[in-house]
């Protein structure tokens, strides 16, 4: 079974109670990554084995093996909720998407109306948690201690947010739009999870959609059934799940989840000197450039002198990946990788590179990407108190024999 020793006592219990109310305990993450190694692997409804971060509300991380391809399957897509309870049952005969607030004609749309009255558009886009890789921050910071798997890429189909707003008739003086879902805290004192975007942000971008389809299927409940907001290029905090209410407002919306939560330092890098506090903050927004080497998996034993094919994915905040490079000499020299099919500027971009490991010993391969405006990744990790925006150059070690 290979469970880690500190899990062995619990392993015996787990074997006896392998199926517990919708969860199959399937073992523990075996990754060489110390952040996720030893965490429970769990199987939630409509999901395959994912790494458990928290049970209630559920936060589930995608094992890195799923990022050897551009599209993340729905069953492997990560899960992150903020408040509890979360919706576990949605009846489409009664579900309605409301568009209201500072508008002339408030809407209440059934799923059938949403599909019939508004043009369907498709966008392939990366959904990444603001705090992805937070567990690697040094000095460490409070918050969900994610490894690198709080991300995924899917083809989303739905209607344009701006078409909905046009139909509702946005009034003069409107400045922002708020988004609320069916997840409602049990106690009135807990701030409901509501997010906002500026009106300009959503009117200028026809790729901001209300998606009711994910990779050709309805969204899994835990990824936002029956509809979620898609904000390509921006962090997942704005991609409100189980969407129910879109409200146009005539003043900035500054409730807890917009302020003070989900803020980054108001500096060009969104970072500050490690261990210090920012003087001013702004809401988190566009994603930084990242790239990962995912195949062969880290720690794999490779034959020295025999060519191997390295593969992985790269993405950015919506300009598109221009180039991916690898280095096996600690970053002294870099070599260009081949890019896979272009699924649009918001998508994971697959890359591959033939590489011949040295004769023996450990080998380390680094990977970095550049987007189309020249942004890249740093050799030193950036730092901020909330553990956001991580995009340091990643490296993978192999055993060569």
């Amino acid at each position: 079974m290979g469970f880690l020793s500190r899990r062995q006592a619990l392993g015996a219990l787990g074997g006896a109670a392998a199926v517990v109310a919708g969860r199959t305990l399937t073992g523990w993450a075996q990754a060489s990554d110390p952040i996720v190694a030893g965490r429970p692997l769990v199987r939630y409804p409509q999901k395959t084995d994912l790494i458990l971060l928290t049970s209630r509300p559920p936060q589930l991380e995608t094992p890195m093996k799923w990022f050897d391809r551009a599209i993340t399957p729905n069953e492997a897509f990560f899960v992150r909720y903020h408040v509890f309870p979360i919706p576990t049952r949605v009846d489409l005969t009664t579900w309605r998407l409301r568009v209201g607030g500072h508008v002339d004609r408030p809407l209440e749309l059934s799923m059938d109306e949403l599909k019939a009255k508004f043009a369907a558009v498709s966008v392939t886009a990366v959904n990444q948690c603001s705090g992805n890789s937070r567990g690697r921050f040094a000095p460490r910071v409070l918050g969900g201690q994610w490894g690198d798997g709080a991300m995924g890429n899917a083809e989303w189909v739905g209607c344009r947010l701006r078409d909905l707003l046009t139909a509702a008739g946005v009034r003069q003086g409107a400045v922002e739009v708020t988004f609320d879902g069916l997840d409602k805290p049990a106690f009135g004192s807990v701030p409901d999870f509501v997010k906002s975007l500026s009106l300009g942000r959503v009117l200028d971008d026809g790729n901001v959609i209300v998606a009711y389809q994910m990779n050709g299927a309805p969204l899994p409940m835990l990824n936002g059934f029956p509809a979620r907001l898609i904000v390509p290029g921006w962090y997942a905090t704005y991609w409100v799940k189980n969407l129910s209410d879109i409200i146009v407002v005539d003043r900035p919306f500054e409730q807890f989840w917009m302020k003070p939560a989900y803020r980054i330092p108001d500096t060009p890098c969104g970072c500050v000197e490690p261990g210090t506090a920012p003087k001013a903050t702004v809401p988190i927004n566009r994603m930084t450039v990242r790239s990962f080497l995912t195949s062969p998996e880290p720690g794999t034993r490779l034959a020295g002198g025999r060519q191997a094919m390295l593969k992985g994915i790269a993405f950015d905040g919506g300009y598109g990946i221009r180039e991916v490079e690898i280095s096996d000499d600690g970053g002294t020299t870099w070599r260009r990788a081949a890019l896979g099919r272009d699924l649009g500027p918001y998508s994971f971009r697959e890359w591959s590179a033939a590489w011949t490991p040295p004769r023996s010993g450990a080998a380390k391969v680094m990977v970095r990407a550049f987007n189309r405006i020249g942004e890249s990744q740093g050799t030193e990790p950036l730092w901020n108190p909330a553990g956001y925006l991580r995009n340091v150059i990643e490296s993978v070690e192999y055993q060569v024999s």
Partner: protein
Amino acid sequence: MATLVRTIICAVVLLAGAASAEEITLPSDHPDGTLKPGPGSEVAQRSCALCHSTDYIVMQPPGDQKQWDGVVTKMIKVFGAPLSDADAKAVAEYLARQYGR
């Protein structure tokens, strides 16, 4: 054959249900997230688990009394956790003792 017919009927019923409503059942809190035993563990488990599973705590970086005082204060002030002053102090002290540096 009877089994096949029954299977088809079941499938039709499921599809009819799936057309209008989607439903899942969530598991209970995972035992890995249970707080360590020790003085104050009961009040901590009870107070924290009111709103969230305690794996939220177990995974955090170890911290001194200042860190855990800050966390407990945030839970009360921002999220309205219903703790008496005495319980808040007991929980923060327990956390610093069991999840300290």
